[in-house]
């Protein structure tokens, strides 16, 4: 694997390095749902590079936004991003948390949604009317990730992690997680 060292970044333009950083971030997994990278999940909002004066080093600032405010996976993701960049020779790393605009499942990549389904978790539907506080709403139709049937039922709005709801398929009986819209 090509290792970018302080010296080898010297001749690269900032756009090349930026591209390289996004590639590195693609390899950083969500610890709870490891088939998703932090890019698939949409938590990395932007990367900024600043050349450190009188040196060939670049300072890397990665802007991340939390999925759920209390999600313990966020701390792990921040640490993993730092570790991945350190391993590739970047030493001057700042990770900045931004809260607004708030993360939404609409930012999850299409590839990420396919990976989720293959992993057995139904990916989030596009954000719609579900995000209102009204009680006993008509539930959206959520497909079973195993047999694709829409004949499913909500077991609990809150599932194994903050981001998931618990469903069961009425046809194949598979209990499954739904990455709920947010």
């Amino acid at each position, binding site marked *: 694997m090509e290792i970018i060292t302080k010296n080898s970044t010297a001749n690269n333009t900032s756009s090349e390095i930026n591209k390289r950083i996004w590639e590195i971030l693609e390899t950083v997994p969500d610890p709870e749902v490891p088939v998703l990278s932090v890019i698939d999940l949409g938590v990395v909002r932007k990367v900024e590079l600043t050349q450190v004066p009188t040196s060939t080093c670049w300072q890397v600032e990665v802007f991340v936004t939390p999925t759920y405010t209390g999600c313990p996976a966020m701390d792990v993701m921040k640490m993993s991003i730092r570790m991945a960049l350190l391993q590739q020779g970047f030493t001057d790393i700042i990770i900045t948390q931004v*809260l607004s605009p708030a993360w939404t499942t609409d930012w999850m990549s299409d590839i990420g949604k396919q990976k989720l389904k293959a992993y057995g978790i139904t990916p989030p539907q596009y954000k719609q009317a579900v995000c209102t506080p009204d009680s006993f709403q008509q539930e959206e139709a959520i497909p079973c990730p195993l047999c694709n049937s829409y004949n499913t039922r909500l077991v609990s709005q809150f599932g194994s992690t903050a981001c998931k709801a618990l469903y069961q398929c009425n046809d194949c009986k598979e209990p499954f997680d739904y990455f709920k819209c947010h």
Partner: protein
Amino acid sequence: MMTKQNLIDYTLHLADNALIIGHRNSEWCGHGPILEQDIAISNIALDYIGQARNFYQYAAQLQGNAATEDSLAYLRDVVDFKNCLLVELPNGDWGQTILRQFFFSTYQYFFFQQLQNSLDEQLAAIAEKALKEVTYHVRWSSEWAIRLGDGTEESKQRMLLAVDELWSYTGEMFQEAGYERLAVSEGYGIDLTSIKNSWDAKIKSVFEEATLSLPTVAWMQSGGKEGQHSEHLGFVLGEMQFLQRANPGAEW
């Protein structure tokens, strides 16, 4: 600086509300009536700890002097806490916990809707983020209030008791503390009278569906926001703060 201290107090009030109700909800972990609802209330507790962290981190940044989110949560005493009395009350039975959640989540829902427009960008950002989670809390707690209120003879009786127990603690949410009054005049705080009608209307409609009648008692408890707490908060802090006080700086 008067203004900065007020912003800190205002932020701490929001943080303390979230931390204490989050802690109370976490007491249900492993004790919920059924597994799915045990998970639900523990998830809600986690959302609150997240909210509390955001507010404490901001308060710590404003305060400087080596304050951290942990020092604010673990090393302040009862009189420094600015949470409403409602959130520190013991959980009671499941009905009482559900009803408190419904009262408080509905309050937070309308409150954060407004706070999103705060002149303080960080408070606005935290509110925008939290509102998404609170929306789920309102749905969940109102559905349970309806199921239990309009449920069996026993669930109904328990909900009626819960209403009696909690109602006099609901007024404090809308009574301005000094730092709230100043926060409104400085443009970053919420005028509580502006959300009271929305809260009343939502409670009324859910109570109707739950076949519960609204109490007519007008007398309300108060004091928590200004640091005058019930005896319960000391026990909450005793449990929550023990480790950091006995082993300062301990980490996982």
